[in-house]
């Protein structure tokens, strides 16, 4: 069996985090999302994997090259939709195959359920179906797919994971796989709907926090770094090589800390936090329910809750990011959300700054004592 992973799209609604990587490469619980997809396939004995890359293809390819198993890479030069992306992989496919989005988490069990049934798709109920392809079912077969409807007739959505036959390629007209599936249904072909087990998608950047929390829930504790004897560690905590945790730091799992970090003394790391590699967290800082990528620095006496920090961010002392409810416009769509802050790469925040429910673009500089609430600051801005 072969599998095609689609990882060419940028994931515009997750901006600013997609400047240097597509959504599939965003690290959640310290591993890019696509790695979970590949792992789920491998657990099902599917080793013949093709990845379609496009946006920031070099970064994706470089990552795939360092995995243990060889992965075939094909390039989609222009991002014209999922069916077009799939067509790019046509020459590599010889029989029945699976299609999976590279930017959604899927558990191995769901793949086991679908892999032996040709012409099937994984479906799942979702509380906000309007962001997906909504499917109508009858006796376990799909009768209709409606792509991102304003008023969804059901809560059942397509996960974007399909099991298809080789002849699917000859049916491709239009740009999206759902279009082709709709056409097949109209022509009388039967598409089986298989309920997915554990499937996670992040539509907006703050959804990454939910995905992070979910993936951390199965974290196995491990300690490779140096921790002071006065450090208090509870729950599942994983500490990478070369990391030093200073005295009187309290870490309550699940928490995943990468390699070569410096944390503490006197810090407090609360549950559902992932910290990348080479991150510095200065004394008297408290962090919880947060995702921090590589090479970032958080100054002393800060409070960071419900936040996503890109790479190379520097937040000065006395920074506060905490969740409030607010309304933001993302890619022309007004949405309500509740989170602390989403920071792109290389954000420099001044001391005594407050962030509530705001998205800060890449390379933004914020002067001291800034107070931002429900704002979406574009890349490269200077906030005075």
């Amino acid at each position, binding site marked *: 069996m072969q599998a095609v992973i689609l990882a060419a799209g940028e994931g515009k609604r997750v901006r600013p985090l997609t400047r*240097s990587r597509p959504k599939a490469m965003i690290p959640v619980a310290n591993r890019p999302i696509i790695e979970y997809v590949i792992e789920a396939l491998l657990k099902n004995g599917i080793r013949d994997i093709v*990845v379609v890359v496009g946006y920031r293809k*070099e970064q994706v*390819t*470089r990552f*795939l*090259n360092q995995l243990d198993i060889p992965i075939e890479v094909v*390039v989609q030069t222009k991002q014209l939709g999922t069916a077009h992306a799939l067509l790019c992989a046509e020459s590599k496919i010889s029989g029945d195959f699976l299609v999976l989005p590279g930017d959604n988490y899927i558990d191995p069990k769901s793949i086991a359920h679908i892999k032996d049934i040709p012409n099937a798709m994984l479906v799942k109920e979702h509380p906000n179906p309007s962001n997906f392809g909504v499917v109508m079912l009858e006796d376990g077969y799909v009768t209709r797919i409606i792509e991102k409807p304003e008023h969804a007739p059901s809560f059942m959505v397509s996960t974007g994971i399909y099991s298809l036959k080789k002849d699917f390629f000859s049916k491709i007209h239009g740009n999206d796989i759902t279009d082709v599936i709709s056409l097949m249904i109209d022509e009388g072909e039967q598409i089986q709907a298989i309920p997915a087990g554990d499937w996670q998608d992040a539509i907006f950047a703050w959804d990454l926090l939910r995905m992070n929390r979910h993936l951390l829930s199965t974290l196995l504790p491990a300690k490779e770094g140096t921790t002071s004897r006065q450090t208090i560690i509870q729950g599942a905590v994983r500490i990478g090589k070369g990391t030093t945790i200073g005295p009187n730091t309290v870490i309550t799992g699940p928490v995943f800390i990468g390699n070569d970090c410096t944390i503490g003394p006197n810090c407090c790391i609360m549950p559902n936090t992932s910290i990348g590699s*080479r991150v510095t967290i200065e004394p008297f800082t408290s962090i919880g329910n947060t995702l921090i990528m590589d090479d970032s620095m958080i100054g002393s006496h800060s409070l960071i809750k419900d936040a996503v920090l890109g790479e190379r961010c520097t937040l000065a002392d006395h920074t506060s990011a905490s969740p409030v409810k607010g309304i933001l416009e993302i890619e022309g769509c007004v949405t309500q959300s509740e989170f602390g802050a989403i920071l792109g790469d290389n954000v420099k925040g001044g001391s005594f700054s407050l962030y509530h429910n705001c998205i800060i673009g890449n390379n933004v500089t914020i002067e001291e004592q800034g107070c931002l609430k429900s704002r979406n600051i574009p890349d490269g801005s200077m906030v005075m």
Partner: protein
Amino acid sequence: MCGIVGYVGRREAAPLIVEGLKKLEYRGYDSFGVATIGKTLELDKHKGRISDNAQSASHLKGKVGIGHTRWATHGIPNNINAHPHLDCTGTIAIVHNGIIENYAELKRQLKARGHTFRSDTDTEVVVHLIEEEYGKKNDLLFAVQTVVPKLEGSYALLVIADNEERMIAARNASPLVIGIGDGENFAASDMTPILEHTERAMFLEDGDIATLSRGEVTIFNHGKVVNRPLELIDWSLEDVKKGGFAHFMLKEIYEQPQSFYNTICAVNPDIIPEFVHHPLTVTVVACGSSYHAGLIFKYLMEESCRIPVRLEYASEFKYYPPPIEGLVIGITQSGETADTLTALKQAKAHNCRTLAITNILGSSVSRLADATIFMRAGPEISVAATKSFVAQLAVLMQIVNNIADRKCNDMLLHAHQAIEEILLIDLTDAVAVCTLAKDIFYVGRGPFYAVALEGALKMKEISYIHAEGYAAGELKHGPFALLSSETPVIALCTPGDTYGVMISNIKEMKARGAPVIAIGSEGDSELPDIVDIFIPIPNTTPFVQVLTSLVVLQLLAYYTAVALGRDVDKPRNLAKSVTVE
């Protein structure tokens, strides 16, 4: 410079050797050939690249075989001069990497004794000499042992003969690795062809002769059995494959943040030898890109440590009076660059301490120098040096940092982030300008002069566009006459002492109508207004800006070469490392 591969074992040899030769193509690619011992000795050799002739040679039968991919030194590339070479009887075959210096004399003697020569190569004398000795005892090992002392020059040899279930390998001054497999053994110019099959390797020393059979490898030196340590090679095979990248060069450009970071971490004070901690003077010998790395080192070292640095092309070093004292550093990615080896030998002869900086474990330079620092770039396949260059800089910057009391530690540990960042840059406009140009000038001042030289070298070697690097101040002393609206100038203009004078240089060049592409700091308000195309790099320290501007120039050369349809990884007339003077 040539690549050789040998196999003896339980599988069909020819397909394995062909695959191995493809991986060695960076060492030479003008002709190739394979010989195996099937029922009789079988031979297939061609002019051209092995990757373009995928099916040829694989059909040969037999479980013992040797192969060769050539970069011509003696005799033009054609079918006849391609290796392997056979003796008069057609029962002995040989492949050779290196140069037999006394071949003319030997050839005359052999001809007088009635041997017929088919090719113009120096190699063929060896096989005829072996033929004479083999006739006496029918013992191939004895024959090679008797012949080798008669040879002068450099060689890595692999010999097979009809009716012999083994292969004989000999080495002097050319690289040769023995790979120990399970019921099979390998020999090759470097690890890349072997990695797929085993990670256990032995590096032969000068004067070693080894006999390889299916289950056994015995090494002799001057007739005595010797042991060479078994080393485990931790390169993964993926490292030497192209992955999904269009070219090795692009793959290697994108691996630079990791190469730099790994090297910075690996080169800690314990690795840097004691005699490098407080040198009185430093002499750097290097060729090509490595020379440019040396030039950047000279600026950094003299400025940060106040230690004078002399920098020479390794090939010119012997024509200057040698240093009487101080430290001599030889920089070579492959560790096999003939000129650098000679220069280091000369320095040693004058009692100087020598330090080698190289990427290849077990390479000749590491045996020669008093101490060696390995960079951690991983295998570099593309002929144009990219990641090995930044790794060289990482080693050199760590040496400077170490002498300057490690005050730059923090900056070096985070420098790879800036390289990562610069990889996102969009160069479409600049590439469009370069693609149309016949000549391009690169100018810079201070360490950026070295960056200009390296940028120009990258451009000319892979895009075949005439490109020259100049110190910006030197432009007015002649090259200015060449400027016109058809000669783009790439100017490196970053904040610092040189900024003001660079700005006025750029204005002068603009006044002559030359289109100017400037690389400057993000947020510069003056520069973008006076130049045609402005390429911003992050506003950081000069150390880091040297690295980032360099990566910009590598990408510029790469995309220009791709736009012009050049063979980026194997530019015409060039070989990865130059093992002849």
